[in-house]
C-alpha cells in the first residue's frame, strides 16, 4: 500500500537542505521552515520597518551617487572652460577689443578654441532678464569670448589674465574658479551628508535587528534550551535564526529599494524640465540604478551578521 503521507506532497520536511547555487537566490525570497520559530507577530511589522529603512537608504545612496557624479561633472566641465569678458570702453570699438583679445589668445599655448560670442548671442543671453525690446542697438553690451583649454596642459592662467587685461581696456579673464569651488563644495557637502544618512540608516537597521533577535531568543527561550539539551551547538541555532533575518533583510530591501527607485523615477518626471535642486533631471542617472540593486543584498548581509553575532552573544549568557 502506498504511503498516503508521501503521496500528498513532500511534507513533512525542514527547509530544502540540498540547495544548488541557483536555489540560493530563490531561497532568499521564499522563506523555508526553521527550527527556531519565526518572530511571529512582529514579523510583518519588522519587515515594514526594514523596508522603510531600505527605502531611506536607497534615497540616500541615490542622492549621494547622483550629487557626487554632478560634482565631478562640474569640476571637469568648468575647469575646461574660461570666459573673457569685455566691457564696453570709450577708448576702443568693441570689435577692436575682441580682435586684440583674440590676438593674445591665439599666441597662448594650451588653448583649444576661443570663440567670441556675437552681439546677437550676447543679447540672447540677456533677453530673459531684460526682454528683447529693450536691447536697442545702441545699448552698450559687454562681449564674451568662450575659451576651451587643454585639460592636460592648461595655460598659465594668472599670466593670461594679465595679458588679456593689457590687450584691451575693459577686458578681464573669468576663470569661474570662485563659482566652481563654491558649487563643488556645496555638492560635496551634500554628497557626504547623504553618505552620513546612509550610515545612520544602516546603524539603525543593525540596532533594530539586534533588538529583534534578542527579543526573539528570549521569547523562545524554552526552544533554545531544548535545542541545547539535545546537543545543538550555538552555530546551529545561529544559522536557524539568521536564516529568518536573511529573508527579512532581503525582502525588506527589495521592497525599500523598489520604492526608492520608483521615487527617483517620479522625481525625474516632476523635474524633467531642468535640474531639480542638485539631483539631475532624470531623478537619478540610469548609470546609478544598478548600484541601487545593491541595497537588498546589503540589507540582507547587515541583518544576517547582526543577528548572528547577537545570537552568539546572547546564548553565551543564557545557558
Amino acid at each position, binding site marked *: 500500500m502506498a504511503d498516503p503521507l508521501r503521496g500528498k506532497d513532500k511534507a*513533512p520536511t525542514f527547509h530544502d537542505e540540498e540547495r544548488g547555487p541557483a536555489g540560493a537566490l530563490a531561497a532568499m525570497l521564499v522563506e523555508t521552515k526553521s*527550527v527556531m520559530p519565526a518572530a511571529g507577530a512582529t514579523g510583518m511589522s519588522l519587515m515594514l520597518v526594514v523596508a522603510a529603512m531600505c527605502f531611506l537608504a536607497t534615497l540616500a545612496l541615490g542622492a549621494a551617487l547622483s550629487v557626487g557624479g554632478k560634482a565631478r561633472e562640474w569640476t571637469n566641465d568648468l575647469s575646461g572652460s574660461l570666459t573673457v569678458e569685455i566691457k564696453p570702453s570709450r577708448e576702443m570699438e568693441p570689435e577692436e577689443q575682441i580682435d586684440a583679445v583674440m590676438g593674445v589668445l591665439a599666441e597662448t599655448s594650451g588653448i583649444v578654441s576661443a570663440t567670441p560670442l556675437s552681439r546677437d548671442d550676447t543679447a540672447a543671453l540677456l533677453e530673459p532678464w531684460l526682454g528683447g525690446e529693450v536691447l536697442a542697438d545702441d545699448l552698450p553690451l559687454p562681449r564674451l569670448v568662450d575659451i576651451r583649454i587643454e585639460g592636460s596642459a592648461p595655460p598659465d592662467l594668472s599670466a593670461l589674465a594679465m595679458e588679456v587685461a593689457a590687450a584691451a581696456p575693459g577686458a578681464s579673464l573669468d576663470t569661474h574658479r570662485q563659482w566652481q569651488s563654491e558649487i563643488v563644495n556645496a555638492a560635496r557637502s551634500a554628497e557626504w551628508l547623504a553618505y552620513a544618512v546612509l550610515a545612520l540608516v544602516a546603524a539603525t537597521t543593525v540596532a533594530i535587528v539586534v533588538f529583534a533577535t534578542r527579543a526573539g531568543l528570549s521569547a523562545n527561550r*524554552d*526552544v533554545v534550551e531544548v*535545542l541545547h*539539551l*539535545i546537543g545543538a551547538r*550555538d552555530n546551529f541555532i545561529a544559522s536557524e535564526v539568521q536564516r529568518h533575518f536573511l529573508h527579512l533583510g532581503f525582502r525588506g530591501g527589495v521592497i525599500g529599494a523598489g520604492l526608492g527607485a520608483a521615487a527617483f523615477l517620479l522625481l525625474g518626471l516632476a523635474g524633467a524640465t531642468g535640474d531639480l535642486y542638485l539631483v539631475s533631471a532624470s531623478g537619478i542617472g540610469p548609470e546609478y540604478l544598478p548600484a541601487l540593486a545593491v541595497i537588498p543584498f546589503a540589507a540582507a548581509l547587515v541583518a544576517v551578521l547582526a543577528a548572528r553575532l547577537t545570537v552568539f552573544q546572547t546564548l553565551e549568557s543564557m545557558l
Partner: protein
Amino acid sequence: MIRFENVGMRYGMGPEVLRDVSFHLAPASFHFLTGPSGAGKTSLLKLMFLANRPSRGLITMFGQDIATLPRKELPPLRRRIGVVFQEFRLLGHLTTYENVALPLKIQGKREAEYRADVEELLAWVGLGDRMNATPPTLSGGEKQRAAIARAVVAQPEVLLADEPTGNVDPEMGQRLLRLFVELNRLGTSVLIATHDRALVESTGAPELVLRDGRLTIRG
C-alpha cells in the same frame, strides 16, 4: 559511563536537594530511579543530561569531568544522551516528524538519510498517522510517545527518561518499556525515573531510590 561521587546540588542559596549522591551507571546497564515526589529525581536527571551543574562533588560522563568542561564541549556529550523530559518539551511549531527528526538534523545528517528510519520509528510508537500533526494537537499519550521517539532516534549511548509512561495506559506502558529494553539490548544504558511499581517489577532491573536527597541502591 556515568559516575557520580559525593554529588551535592542546591538551587541558588536554597537547601541541598541532592546530598552525597554516589553511583555508577555501567555501559548497557538498565536502572530505575524511584522515590517519592520532591525527592530530587528530576534534579538528578538534570545533572545527568547536563542541564545543571552540581554544587559539589564529581560527575564523570564518558570519562570526562564535567566541572572542567568548557561550554563548547557540552554538545558532543549531550548528543550521546537521549532524554525524555517529564513535560515532553516538544517544539510546538514543528510537526511530530520534524520534532522526532530534530536530533538527527542537529547532528548535520541529511533528510534523505534519516527519513525512512524516522518514519519507521514513528509507526512503531503508533504515531504513523500523526506525523504531520503539531504537538499542540496531540493527546498527552501521543506527546509522550513523540518525546520518547525523539530521545531514542539517534541511538544514544545513554537514555534518561523522566516518567516516560505517566500518560499512557498500561498496555502502551509495557510496549514502551519493551522499546527501552530492546534499546538496552543493543547497548544503550537506560535510566527510567518512575512512580509506576508495575513497570519496575516487570523487569527486575536494579533500582536507585532517592529519599530526601539521598540515594540508595536496591537490587
